[in-house]
């Protein structure tokens, strides 16, 4: 990972609105990929995180190609696209989750509040406390409900004494809309909860360390529609305090929860825009084909 001063070389994907020119471009043809520019404006005026010219390789495979994208403060941004398009890979770059994959190489700049998160002096444990993550499958620790939430604040030394810890656990569970259901069984194992409750427990665990950004990788794909609706409602409440980036296969979910939507295809960021615009009047043919369920 290179150091962060080369902002000038990253603007190829950053220019706005090139729908017509892009139309004839076959981005499946790798020769065309370098010429491709993102449709729509990937920048915002108040970025919490900024990715510039990000490329990701798994060994020889070029998984993400020159992606530049801002994630605005207190916004929910949805990343959609077919399987293998790189949306989850991109999401995992945002808190250096890809570092744990040995063959994975990340190039480009990713800034959190203007600071390069790939800087050699960046503490990844601290980074992941600031940029929390919720995964596809609820993965509570094999501990009590209380301990699941208290674990993060404890290792980060966020609570002084039992009273403070109790407060953090309660407020996190409340914010995750789980408190009323578990307040009497806090010592029971987290793995004994239903799938939807487990996922909300994982969200409570993520927000217990007061993150600034929450990354969600298909957080509802293992849940039934009611549990999904509760998580979506929760996302809406959480955006008041947090910045949220969500990867989802459900286009209706992207449409319901996000303010901006980014469409990825074969490792490229094809189009980004206001969610309403993307779902009513996408400017790029590939986006149109994907969200209307056409084969391209």
């Amino acid at each position, binding site marked *: 990972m290179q150091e962060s001063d080369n902002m000038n070389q990253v603007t190829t994907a950053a220019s706005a609105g090139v729908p017509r020119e892009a139309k004839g471009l076959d981005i499946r043809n790798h020769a065309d990929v370098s010429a491709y520019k993102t449709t729509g404006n990937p920048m915002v005026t108040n970025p919490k995180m900024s990715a510039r010219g990000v490329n990701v390789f798994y060994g020889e495979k070029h998984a993400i190609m020159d992606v530049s994208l801002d994630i605005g403060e207190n916004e929910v941004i949805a990343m959609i696209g077919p399987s293998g398009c790189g949306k989850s890979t991109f999401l995992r770059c945002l808190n250096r989750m890809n570092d744990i994959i040995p063959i994975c190489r990340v190039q480009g700049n990713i800034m959190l509040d203007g600071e390069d998160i790939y800087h050699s002096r960046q503490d990844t444990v601290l980074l992941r406390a600031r940029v929390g993550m919720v995964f596809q499958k609820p993965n509570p620790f094999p501990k009590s409900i209380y301990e699941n939430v208290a674990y993060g604040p404890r290792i980060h030394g966020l609570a002084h004494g039992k009273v403070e810890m109790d407060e953090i656990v309660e407020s996190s569970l409340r914010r995750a809309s789980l408190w009323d259901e578990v307040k009497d069984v806090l010592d029971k194992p987290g793995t004994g909860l239903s799938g939807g409750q487990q996922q909300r427990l994982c969200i409570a665990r993520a927000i217990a360390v007061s993150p600034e950004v929450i990354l969600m990788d298909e957080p509802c794909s293992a849940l039934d529609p009611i549990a999904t609706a509760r998580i979506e409602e929760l996302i809406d409440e959480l955006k008041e305090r947090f910045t949220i980036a969500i990867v989802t296969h459900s286009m209706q979910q992207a449409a319901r929860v996000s303010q901006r939507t980014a469409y990825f295809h074969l490792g490229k960021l094809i189009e980004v825009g206001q969610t309403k615009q993307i779902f009513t009047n996408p400017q790029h043919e590939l986006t149109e*084909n994907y969200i209307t369920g056409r084969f391209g």
Partner: protein
Amino acid sequence: MPDSLNLDQHTSQRYDAELEGVRSRLLEMGGLVEEQCRKALKALVKDNVELAREVAESDYRVNEMEVEISARCTDILALRQPAASDLRVVVSVIRMTADLERIGDEAEKIARHALLLSERRDAASFRGDPKHLGKQAIAQLRGALDAFARMDVRAAIETAAQDPEIDQEFESVTRLLISHMMEHPASVKSLLRVNWCARALERIGDHAVNLCEEVVFQVKGSDVRHLSLSEIRQRYL
């Protein structure tokens, strides 16, 4: 965004068929409404009582089609959750059925006036006055339906551009009828009926303009309903 729509090529072929189904049904409804207008105008101009009665009594078919097409669109919204161009087509087709139904009502109105005029001898010399206006309005309706069938934005805008001529023709027919009224005060009642028919024809033209605007919306994704013609032309031609 493409310049025309591909309503096929969904992964679900049944979805293709459902979308194409509402479109072709709307065109059938358009064809029926156009026929109603043609017959109503002929009944008025030629004093054809049979034809007038036929039009007045078959408006229910137009109404039934409106209900059926709207229901099909509601089903697609509920079951397919259409997005982007598919969503625009479905939403827009619902609006278009309402316009076509109103055109059907105007045709029925003309037919009913034609029936009443047949009972009066004084109408014979001026019931043909709106003939040219009627031809213009029907041509505009046909142009709108053709533009929809081909999803042709240029044709839609050019068709909508004919509306001022129709408005002008309506004004001249009205002036003509007023002068008849001054010359034949005893025939004012019949002359008013003819003027109402002219008014109905002018309204058919307005609804045809709405249909043209829907074609632009479906293809281009922008709502142009309250833009001036010159603005629409500037943006899309």
